[in-house]
């Protein structure tokens, strides 16, 4: 079992990277089913369980930063359990989901913990140290690999169903709470953008954008087009204006 567990761990590491880096989508359960099936010597069951898991994860895609249950670990552990236990694919789903949810919570923590590294990246940028920037990105890829490989190895080596019971003892409020925090966290990025870009004379445009989205539920593209219309109007108007008073206005702005 050790050899198989190592091979599955390697696969999980590779597709754990692919979920964020590469995005060739070999990390989907339908592909994992085939590969795990090959490793464990039962391709047909692998394909069937992988296909079933694929349909379940179909609607669960990362949209706008909200993270669904982790498809990498869900697909790998689900198929491995389905093949090893000989149970119905739906039982495999039941084992896969708690892992997938717990792993997604861990990834939220990882994305939070990786934030301080950005300050190191700022220093590298200031020194125009491009190798430093590259190293930081390679570090992220390495962590993704090791993290996913480890998470896949342990339950397969020690038995997925026992591991699932342990995972289920994690209080639900912690996992939910991390999910809620993940939904709010984009606010920090937007606030940082505002700190750089927002000036008094631009506040009105931000209000327009906010109202269009909050009250009228307009998609971002529509909002951008309205922003563009305002900008074009402003652009051509300022071209027509006599330059002298504009000059003064600009110096005031600065």
């Amino acid at each position: 079992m050790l050899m198989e567990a190592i091979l599955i761990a390697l696969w999980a590491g590779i597709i754990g990277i692919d979920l964020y880096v590469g995005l060739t989508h070999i990390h989907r359960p339908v592909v994992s089913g085939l590969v795990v099936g090959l490793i464990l010597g039962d391709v047909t069951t692998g394909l069937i369980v992988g296909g079933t898991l694929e349909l379940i994860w179909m609607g669960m895609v990362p949209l706008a930063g909200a993270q669904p249950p982790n498809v990498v670990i869900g697909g790998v552990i689900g198929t491995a359990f389905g093949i090893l236990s000989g149970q119905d694919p739906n039982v495999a789903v039941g084992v896969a989901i708690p892992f997938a949810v717990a792993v997604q919570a861990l990834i939220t923590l990882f994305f939070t913990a990786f934030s301080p590294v950005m300050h190191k990246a700022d220093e590298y940028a200031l020194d125009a140290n491009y190798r430093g920037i590259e190293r930081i990105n390679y570090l992220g890829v390495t962590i993704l690999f090791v993290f996913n490989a480890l998470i896949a190895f342990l339950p397969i080596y020690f038995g997925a169903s026992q591991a699932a019971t342990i995972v289920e003892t994690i209080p639900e409020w912690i996992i939910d709470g991390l999910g809620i925090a993940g939904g709010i966290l984009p606010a920090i990025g937007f606030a940082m953008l505002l700190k750089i870009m927002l000036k008094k004379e631009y506040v009105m445009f931000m209000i327009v954008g906010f109202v269009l989205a909050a009250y009228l539920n307009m998609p971002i593209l529509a909002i951008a087009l309205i922003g563009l219309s305002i900008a074009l109007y402003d652009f051509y108007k300022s071209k027509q204006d006599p330059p002298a008073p504009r000059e003064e206005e600009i110096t005031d702005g600065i």
Partner: protein
Amino acid sequence: MVSNYEYQDPTPSERLNPKQLRMLTFRSLLLQASFNYERMQAAGWLYSILPGLRQAHKNKKDLSKAMKDHMEFFNTHPFLVTFIMGIILAMEQNKEDREAIRGIKVATMGPLGGIGDALFFLTLLPITASIGASLAIEGNILGPIIFVVMFNIIHFGTRFGLMKFGYEAGVSAIAKLKESTQQISRAASIVGLTVVGGLIATYVAFNIDYVWVSGDAELDIQSEVLDAIMPGLLPIAYTLLVYWLLKKGRSPLVLIGLTVVVGLLGSFLGIM
């Protein structure tokens, strides 16, 4: 209105050749390599455009300024990012005003994020994956293979095509708009901030999940109180609070920690 940074070396640099554009497209695969909640894709974005940036700015001080700017918050759809890369690199090599570069970057990342989700995660993926899954469930080994091939022909076709298109569009548009950098910076900031306003309402998910009960009376705090005052009230209020704290010099890291605590607390008390 116009950034106060003057380039040490304001001469436009050499154009990128097709081979370089292809290499940059491959680097864009690492856009999310250093994803985190403070800057999201910023360091991966900088990684992706870095060779182009180094060709554009031979002067070390200019390069440092450009690299620092590109470490600012960035988030878009990973397949469509090459379009922004093309435009921005065209602007960088032409030594455009730094504020105009930032404005264009922010104005394009939001809409492309939404378009990309709709095109790839809500259309391409379900179609190709369901074809693959239906074959796999019958035990047909072609299922996963057909899925990966179909998906990636469109995936990589998009990445490479948009890189070329974005770069050429950037180069030709800039040539036309050359004389009015000040107005362009202003226009870019207007679009950028309109988009950011929309992004806050759309992508910050901050809801109260609590129903206040008193006898027969039930009051859903989110839908009957907060939404009645203003939809998106908590997202904008929280964003402005963070903005204010940032201006007071609080570190983004502390604010990230605070947000995690808010999430855990809200979940523990069962109100979020």
